[in-house]
């Protein structure tokens, strides 16, 4: 299996982010995790505008400011400088997580070390060494109506990230609703991975071979087609 070395058969992170962005409705309230998930904001389809929430107390923030124009009291959860859109609001941390925990977000998008077929997510810690840090991930996975994961399909060492059961410490139990990978779009439904789209350069069997749990088919499987980015 040398799929990782064939760039035509896998999406770049930008392309994964683009694909996830297509599933965000106009006017949706969205929280993007630190790092890779933040890329989703760049690819909102024309005519749609999501409202972005950041744990540290802003609704409706926008793109980064020009270099040199940063206000370090106007940052996102990744501590990056942002700007405001008209109709923004500030609030304290308890109100911010009331939005999260209270089910007011439409979508949360996170990265993953592993996702299990029942929707368990492991994305905060890979072992017992170093300094553990959790941030808001454990809250986000239990609050949003839809919890999307964006991720490579395989780890850098070629291990499946979609598994029967997570071996890394859990972030949340049965919380992920949909996974966007470099090779496929997979729903969690009824405790199973249900394949919705797959990279057209890849057979079902090849995809199953790099997936750590059974991929079910329940309805049509589309081609995962994304633009060059």
């Amino acid at each position: 299996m040398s799929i990782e070395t064939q760039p035509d058969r896998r999406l770049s992170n930008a392309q994964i982010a683009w694909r996830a962005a297509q599933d965000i409705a106009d006017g949706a309230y969205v929280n993007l995790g630190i790092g890779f998930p933040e890329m989703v904001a760049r690819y909102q389809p024309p005519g749609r505008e999501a409202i972005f929430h950041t744990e540290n107390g802003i609704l409706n923030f926008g793109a980064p400011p020009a270099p040199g124009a940063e206000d370090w009291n106007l940052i996102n959860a990744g501590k990056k400088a942002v700007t405001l859109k008209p109709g923004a609001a500030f609030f304290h941390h308890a109100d911010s997580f009331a939005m999260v925990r209270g089910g007011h977000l439409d979508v949360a998008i996170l990265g993953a070390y592993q996702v299990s077929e029942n929707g368990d997510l492991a994305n905060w810690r890979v072992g017992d060494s170093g300094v553990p840090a959790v941030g808001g991930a454990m809250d986000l996975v239990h609050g949003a109506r839809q919890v999307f994961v964006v991720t490579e399909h395989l780890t850098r060492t070629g291990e499946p990230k979609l598994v029967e059961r997570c071996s890394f410490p859990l972030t949340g139990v049965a919380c992920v609703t949909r996974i966007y990978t470099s090779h496929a779009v997979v729903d969690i439904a009824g405790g199973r991975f249900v394949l919705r789209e797959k990279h057209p350069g890849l057979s079902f069997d090849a995809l199953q071979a790099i997936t750590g749990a059974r991929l079910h088919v329940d309805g049509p499987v589309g081609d995962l087609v994304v633009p060059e980015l």
Partner: protein
Amino acid sequence: MDKRVRSLAEAVSGIESGASVMIGGFGGSGAPIELIHALIDRRPRDLTVISNNAGTGRIGLAALIDAGLVARMICSFPRSSDPRAFTQKFLAGEIALELVPQGTLAERIRAGGAGIPAFYTPTAYGTELADGKAIAEFDGRPYVRERWLKADFALVKAHRGDPLGNLTYDKAARNFGPLMCMAATTTIVQVSHLVPAGGIDPEAVVTPGIFVDRVVEVAAPRQEEELVRAEARYA
């Protein structure tokens, strides 16, 4: 993202018989009279209403009760300067009452909005309002466990609002409004001044728009206290 609706009738659309409805206000301050009257016009039956008080005079919540549309009240203080509507229905056994201490009512609504299914409070311990509730001791002191409160709809009166649903309130008319906005599946707000997006300073927003579903402008809202003093009636 435009949450504006053009009429009061459209604002209260979808509130059917059997619904639970939070109604903002403390006494007359913050009572969304126009939204309540639009709700009466729909004549839904068997409503559960969650509101600090139970109405006064012959308008607003009192008129809703008087019309026989409310099966159950959850409130802290069902008395007022003119409590006839509620008192008559209650004494006739035509309306059920769940009496909740005011701070517990506020916290239960906030909990509903914040995804906290239950919490402990010292309030009401040892009183009949804690009957049947779980008790737990923390640091040697007894507390009562209370559950969140949610509702299908919230009717709230705010001062300024923008198309995204960001809100400010007028003085003590704030009271339960920001909490009820959080705790309802569909939050409906009448604002005295509709302003464009960006028309409210982000620092001054009291209710962020994420908690609001529909905004309707009522440019010169009536004030419950003044209506009652004028002996006004819903008709």
